[in-house]
């Protein structure tokens, strides 16, 4: 009999737990009457990419608070729903289904990786809900449907800029490549390699690694060293770039490094310090930019969280701000929001002037930066 009691206890515990949790999550729906506009911010809040999702969260919450304090959008408050997709395709589709089912959700900022964004896109498209990804640069993403927007240059744009800089400005002829084996890394590598080869560069080695899994890069570096390149192009996130740079140094190898805008993060310098000294990267957001909106954003962010906002925070901030300015025109209506968003021209964001083209892609000006004396410094506009 004692056992039965335990079983009953167990089942009721689960039920109670479920109730509490569902109770928690459904509460906001009750407040709906107050005239709120619900926008979902989706990204990896847990898992090995959680720092990027957290950047989304911090930046958008900061902006929502500011907008609400200033009276909201046409008198309505912005209500953010922060959702975790673990940067996993399956979770992303679950989240998308959940969000499209909630009629109060007017727009979605997310997802983080192209994989997640791509997986979720058919669901948003079918439901007619805007999916504005601050970071998905896979060329196929926005061609999934008319409700897909992105606020980042595709690799088709960034790759040639980088190749041009490497071959023409730095005068490098022999280039090796290390890329992260995900959809972003592959497109970044492909675009860079084809542009560089077209400019007459010789690609000496192309090596991949698996994000979150590979921690030891010594065999790859040793192999590359043997092909004698004079520049190493890294299509990687800042954390792995830090590791690669450290290990290059440890192997006593001296080579110039070039990376993408994904490296624009103070963390990289904290992580690898002298090992990334001299690294070149493209960028469209520069915290030291003296312009008013950038400094305003950086100040607010520092006050709220005590750290400098990185590329991911900046681009998420811009994305939400663009959505809000579109909402001012369209009102809380999913389809109208899409149309208003598509109309946005020359929006003055902290990540540069932004216009959506007919494919709902953006073309942002890119600058070249270099890490010098432990700081990101402007190298070429």
């Amino acid at each position, binding site marked *: 009999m004692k056992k039965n009691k335990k079983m009953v206890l167990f089942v009721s515990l689960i039920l109670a737990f479920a109730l509490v949790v569902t109770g928690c999550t459904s509460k906001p729906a009750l407040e709906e009457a107050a005239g709120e506009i619900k926008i979902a911010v989706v990204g990896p809040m847990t898992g090995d990419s959680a720092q990027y999702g957290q950047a989304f969260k911090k930046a958008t919450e900061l902006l929502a608070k500011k907008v609400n304090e200033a009276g909201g959008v046409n008198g309505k408050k912005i209500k953010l729903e922060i959702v975790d997709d673990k940067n996993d395709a399956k979770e992303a589709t679950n989240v998308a289904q959940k969000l499209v089912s909630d009629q109060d959700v007017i727009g979605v900022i997310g997802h983080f990786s192209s994989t997640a964004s791509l997986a979720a896109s058919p669901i948003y498209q079918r439901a007619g809900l805007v999916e504005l990804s601050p970071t998905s640069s896979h060329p196929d993403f926005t061609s999934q449907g008319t409700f897909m927007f992105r606020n980042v240059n595709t690799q088709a744009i960034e790759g040639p800029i980088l190749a041009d800089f490497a071959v023409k400005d730095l005068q490098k002829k022999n280039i090796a490549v290390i890329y992260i084996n995900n959809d972003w890394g592959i497109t970044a590598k492909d675009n860079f390699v084809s542009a560089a080869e077209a400019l007459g560069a010789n690609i000496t080695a192309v090596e991949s690694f698996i994000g979150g899994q590979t921690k030891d890069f010594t*065999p790859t570096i040793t192999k590359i060293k043997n092909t004698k390149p004079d520049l190493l192009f890294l299509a990687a996130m800042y954390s792995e770039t830090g590791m690669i740079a450290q290990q290059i140094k440890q192997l006593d190898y001296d080579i110039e490094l070039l990376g993408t805008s994904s490296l624009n993060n103070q963390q990289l310098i904290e992580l690898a310090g002298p090992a990334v000294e001299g690294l070149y990267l493209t960028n469209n957001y520069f915290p030291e930019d003296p312009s008013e909106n950038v400094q305003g954003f950086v100040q607010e962010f520092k006050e709220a969280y005590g750290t400098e906002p990185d590329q991911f925070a900046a681009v998420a901030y811009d994305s939400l701000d663009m959505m809000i300015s579109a909402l001012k025109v369209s009102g809380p209506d999913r389809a109208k929001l899409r149309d208003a968003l598509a109309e946005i021209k020359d929006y003055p964001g902290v990540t540069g002037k932004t216009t959506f083209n007919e494919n709902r892609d953006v073309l942002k000006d890119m600058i070249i930066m270099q890490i010098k004396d432990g700081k990101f410094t402007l190298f070429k506009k």
Partner: protein
Amino acid sequence: MILQQLINGLTLGSTYALTAVGYSMVFGILELVNFSHGSVYMVGAFLTLIFLTSLKLNFFVSFLLSIILTGLLGILIDKVSLYPLRRKNAPKVTALISTIGVSIFLQNLVMLVWGSETKNFPLVINPGAVELMGVKVSFLQMIIFSMCLVIMIGLNTMIQKTRIGKAMRATAQNAEAAKLMGIDINRVIMITFFIGSALASVAGTMVGMYYQTIDPYIGYMAGLKAFAAAVLGGIGVLPGAIIGGLLIGVIETLSAAYINSGYRDAIAFAVLVLMLVIKPSGLLGKQVSKKV
């Protein structure tokens, strides 16, 4: 290049071996596949780092504190998530799932407390290097490698010679009989967990220092590889864990260097599977004959 790659492989292998030794020991005594070991390893590395950077303690003090705290964490994990199951005589897979739960919990706890971004692990030991026949070998590599050997020999001596070691062996062979002989099984298990986890902290710290970076997810692959290394060498056999670790490290490095860097883990696992098919109880494991 092959020599340099071998050195790379041996170093990578010794990081696996370092983790695998503790793993193998816990398994040897409890016959428990402890999936939380990887997370404990990660926690160990984080603790050292936090003492070192946030509390600005001396490296050796930080290291020692981390070893002790991580050891205690091991005991806590056992008391909370495994002891109740042992008492109920639950099937072993239940314990396996329980340790997976602990692993997920620890990983996310660390992420919540210290953030999920990759962190710099300062280089406290001067990383000089010597050059032999055109191959660079850093002192750090040598320290890691000798650490492996010292720990293995130390543990082996302890298990063979000391009283607690004998109690451990008795428990490993037959817990019931050991209990009847007056051995305090729970104490033995507690000490086993303490040592195993403390070693995980040593491994985590050394590996963190070698790569100069750590993040809350380093335990995942390290745990799997340590598991693989321990099994390859013959689980429960300490020298086996070292050989298994080194072998996996070298195979992985050579596959990355000469075959395809994308397939490096796949090849390492394929070799593991193949070796187990040929020698089912691991390289140094004893073939257990059927008891009738």
